[in-house]
């Protein structure tokens, strides 16, 4: 008696199978040779999801060597791309997004209940069955920190040449140039580059570009917030350090322009929904320096007001700004030595740091909070442009 077995078309279970000998091709097409632009319009972090689906199949067939090998090749591939493109913000941001996403996938599908609270039942079916990849998660986390540091370095390198001219030298407030101290030659930190000067709009344009790239690539919002906090700190430090060294910008009018510029930056943060980042708080020393330039500096009451306002500036910084302060015209008096002594006496109990300048290279520690995805592996489509036809959907 013949038995006919009706075979049901097998559903895609969100795994990708490949032959061991195709691993190098997989890493080449998906990592080292990939151009982020080729994936425009696809799911953000697609390479990370594809890699997870490959790891999952190797786990499913209980092939520990295949898992080891793929993860090692992938990590080395990412490092190679980053080394080659070490001044490319878009590429670095792309691999930060994907490395973090792969790390999140290894947590979300680890089988650890702590990481599964937001999973759907279908997502729980896509967990690893055989292997615990905790140690590889640590490697990916360390790699993410390295990529984040590279990203900040690139962004700082692009912003830094703009800061002094945009924040301290450019006059966007109408009529302010008439009330600038006279007798100073216009100086620019970028004089070596000819007459290149920047306005605040250039900084904002550059930050818009960073923000758009990171959002489009699906970088975790918490990381984007940390990037801007770091960049705002650098803007604050570079601007304040220049202010502390240049007599020609220690004036009432620069204080006014500076306060206006900072408010424009705050406005930008609000417009991009980044005001929760702590970026404005990192600007506090500069905000206070701008106010110090504008406050009256004559009576004991003025001294009291300055001391209670300038809590984010050290005594040394306050005194330096007062010493450098340049009257606008013959009607405004210089800050007297007696006034500076009053300030010093009032602040002597403060336990301030000794150094005058801020460390503009200081980096805040970065955190990568777990951010599970609502995407289900079996819904992911692999576009033909990736040239990954050798992957079999399982």
């Amino acid at each position, binding site marked *: 008696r013949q038995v006919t077995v009706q075979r049901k078309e097998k559903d895609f279970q969100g795994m990708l199978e490949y032959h061991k000998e195709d691993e190098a091709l997989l890493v080449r097409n998906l990592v080292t040779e990939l151009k982020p632009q080729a994936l425009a319009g696809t799911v953000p972090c697609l390479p990370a999801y594809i890699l997870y689906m490959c790891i999952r199949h190797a786990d499913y067939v209980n092939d520990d060597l295949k898992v080891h090998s793929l993860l090692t090749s992938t990590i080395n591939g990412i490092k190679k791309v980053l080394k080659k493109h070490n001044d490319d913000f878009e590429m670095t941001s792309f691999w930060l997004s994907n490395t973090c996403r792969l790390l999140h996938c290894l947590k979300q599908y680890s089988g650890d209940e702590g990481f599964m609270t937001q999973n759907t039942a279908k997502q729980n079916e896509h967990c690893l069955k055989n292997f*615990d990849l905790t140690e590889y998660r640590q490697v990916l986390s360390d790699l993410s920190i390295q990529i984040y540091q590279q990203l900040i370095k690139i962004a700082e390198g692009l912003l830094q040449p703009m800061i002094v001219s945009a924040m301290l030298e450019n006059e966007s407030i109408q009529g302010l140039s008439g009330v600038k101290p006279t007798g100073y030659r216009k100086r620019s930190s970028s004089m070596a580059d000819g007459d290149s000067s920047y306005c605040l709009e250039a900084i904002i344009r550059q930050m818009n570009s960073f923000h758009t790239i990171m959002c489009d690539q699906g970088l975790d919002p918490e990381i984007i917030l940390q990037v801007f906090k770091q960049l705002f700190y650098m803007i604050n430090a570079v601007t304040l350090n220049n202010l502390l060294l240049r007599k020609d910008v220690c004036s009432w009018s620069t204080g006014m322009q500076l306060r206006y510029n900072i408010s424009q930056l705050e406005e930008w943060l609000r417009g991009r929904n980044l005001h929760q980042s702590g970026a404005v708080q990192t600007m506090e020393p500069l905000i206070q320096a701008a106010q110090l330039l504008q406050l009256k500096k004559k009576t004991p009451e003025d001294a009291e007001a300055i001391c209670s306002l300038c809590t984010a500036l050290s005594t040394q910084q306050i005194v330096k700004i007062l010493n450098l302060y340049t009257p606008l015209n013959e009607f405004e008096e210089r800050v007297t030595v007696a006034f500076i002594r009053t300030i010093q006496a009032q602040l002597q109990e403060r336990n301030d740091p000794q150094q005058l300048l801020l460390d503009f290279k200081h980096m805040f520690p970065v955190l990568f909070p777990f951010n599970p995805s609502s995407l289900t592996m079996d819904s992911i489509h692999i576009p033909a442009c990736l040239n990954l036809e050798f992957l079999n959907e399982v």
Partner: protein
Amino acid sequence: SAQRPRPRVLLKAPTLAEMEEMTTSEEEESP
């Protein structure tokens, strides 16, 4: 009663620095 899942096997991984050393020495070995 619900079947308890089999415990997963921990895959040992080199640290990022060790991986770097391995790649460097491989590169040095290759002509």
